[in-house]
């Protein structure tokens, strides 16, 4: 079950590229175990480090003023590519709770919701305004505002994040519906049911 999210007040790190894929967020070589933890070291490893494991001081995430930032600002199509949920686990373990982008890879977006991370879609010009703010930015999910700018989020996603809810628990309440559906479904096409 994810931690509930209501407000976040933090610096925002701009990594303003389009099409940042999940291979870039967490390269395959950094996924070293069958766990949801131990991944933050590998976050953006291809950009964060140079040589072996030396800190790349050109990469904004490494700048001292962004230490502890919980908000990430990016471009279009953030989190496209591989479905690997390790991308979100690496971001959360590093400390990020809010990702702002012009658009997101769909699987990545859903993975954020499942892990208590708020993905915010904003036009590029709004993101550019947020980049200019050099102090803490406030994100309020209840009022759907980031740095005074309104954002949209679907009702069920907002509900999941605010409550830190577990989708399986919610769906278990619909088990009667599922079983009724399934009986009719298999009656109509028995071949769909494997023994």
């Amino acid at each position, binding site marked *: 079950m994810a931690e509930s999210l209501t407000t976040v007040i933090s610096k925002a790190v701009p990594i303003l590229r389009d099409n940042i894929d999940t291979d870039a967020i967490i390269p395959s070589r950094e996924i070293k175990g*069958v766990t*949801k933890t131990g991944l933050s070291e590998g976050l953006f490893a291809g950009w964060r480090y140079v040589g072996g494991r030396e800190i790349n001081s050109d990469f904004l995430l490494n700048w001292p003023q962004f230490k502890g930032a919980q908000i990430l600002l990016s471009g279009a199509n953030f989190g496209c*590519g591989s479905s690997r949920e390790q991308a979100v686990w690496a971001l959360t373990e590093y400390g990020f709770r809010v990702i702002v982008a012009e658009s997101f890879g769909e*699987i990545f977006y859903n993975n954020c919701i499942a892990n208590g991370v708020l993905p915010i879609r904003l036009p590029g010009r709004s993101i550019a305004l947020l980049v200019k703010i050099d102090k803490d930015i406030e994100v309020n999910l209840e009022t759907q505002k980031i740095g005074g700018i309104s954002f949209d989020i679907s009702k069920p996603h907002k509900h999941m994040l605010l409550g830190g809810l577990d989708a399986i628990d919610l769906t278990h309440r619909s088990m009667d519906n*599922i079983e009724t559906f399934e009986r009719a479904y298999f009656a109509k096409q028995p*071949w769909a049911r494997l023994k």
Partner: protein
Amino acid sequence: MSALTLFEKLWQAHKVCSLDGGEDLLYIDRIFLHERTGGVALVSMAESGHKIRRPEHVFATMDHIVDTLPGRSDETKMPGGKDFITITRRAAKAAGVTLFDLGDERQGIVHVISPEQGIVLPGLTIICPDSHTCTQGAFGALAFGIGSTQAEHAMATSTLRISKPKPMLVHFDGALKAGVTAKDMILHLISTYGAAGGRGYAIEFAGLAVRALDMEARMTLCNMAVEFGAFTGMVAPDEKTYAWLKDRPYAPKGADWDMAIAGWQKLATDMGAQFDRMINLDAGLVAPTVSWGTSPAQCVLVGGTIPVSKCKEDDKSLAYMGLEPGQKVNSLTVDAAFIGSCTNARLSDLRAAAEVLKGRQVRGGTRAICVPGSSAIKRAAEAEGLDIIFKQAGFEWRESGCSMCFYAGGEGFGAGKRVISSTNRNFEGRQGAGARTHIASPATVAASAVAGHICGASDLGVHNG
């Protein structure tokens, strides 16, 4: 009754109920897992105490992290790789799901073996915590990638909570020219409309040129729907689909088969059904295509030149790939050639590459690797002598798996190495830190391996491809 699209029919048939706020509860028929993202889902479920509702509808394979070198075992070159294999095996057994393990003759890449086994069928919903699950939409199924947590949800409840995507039609009219493939079609689409051109859409591929494709080529086409940003891709089932699936181990048999076909024949999009977006393309205008940058939208014709930068993303891609605008694509020397992946490692792909390689040699100094998409494909290829052609040409001939489509097996091509690859992603570092990937069809990969620089099969005088 109003006219419906294939997608709408699939959705309606699986919608359990509407949920508050616009999502639907969608029934899921089949769940596939692999050792990289599936093992962690199985372990997490066991820890949280959730039971798999229908373990007989859940399958697992070892493809992502397993070694593909001959004589392989649970050991991998990847640090910690063995854990993924052993933990997934233990968790799959404990959960009672069917596992196509190392050494099992059915083992292979998930999206290759699911059709081989008849696990995906027209009219079903099938998911896997793997973005290329859309490959299986080629059979007229609603097949899509999800995250590991959603896989847990599907295992625990046989459903997903999900917003309905919008239907899009991508219509390829006309006929492909000789030597042009489904890979070229999908690269053409993505490079024309962008890597997010399909965002929010479930895409139906249709038109004469799509009907003319065999099932394996339809899989290639649907495979890269996710590279177009789409929720999934699909092709309406037809006689080719039924012929391909008949008598597969998990396909219905006897009267069930007849009943299933009767239902499948009603899946095709009705005349007059509405799509939210339609793209019309002339297949006759598609030519052999290769990516030049680090997004599948950055493509050029095999005989073309590296384009002028139009934005800072292009600048970054050019710098990463070590390229200058105006360079001739066929002047680019390749250090390595890779034929493999869920995109292009089926038998027809290996045949197309072998046709180019027959009687030819890979250019000295070029590393060349072929990894069949499944163990069954490897055996079939060997039965017709394709392995001999590959090996005599200078290719490594490997065991089945995802292999160097990405680094997960622990192998990479090396920083700065230029790789021509039949895979689906040319992202930075995808094939190893600093590696420079150009994606293309198997025939183009084989021809480039022989020439030592990027070129098409026709440049070597091979015209069937």
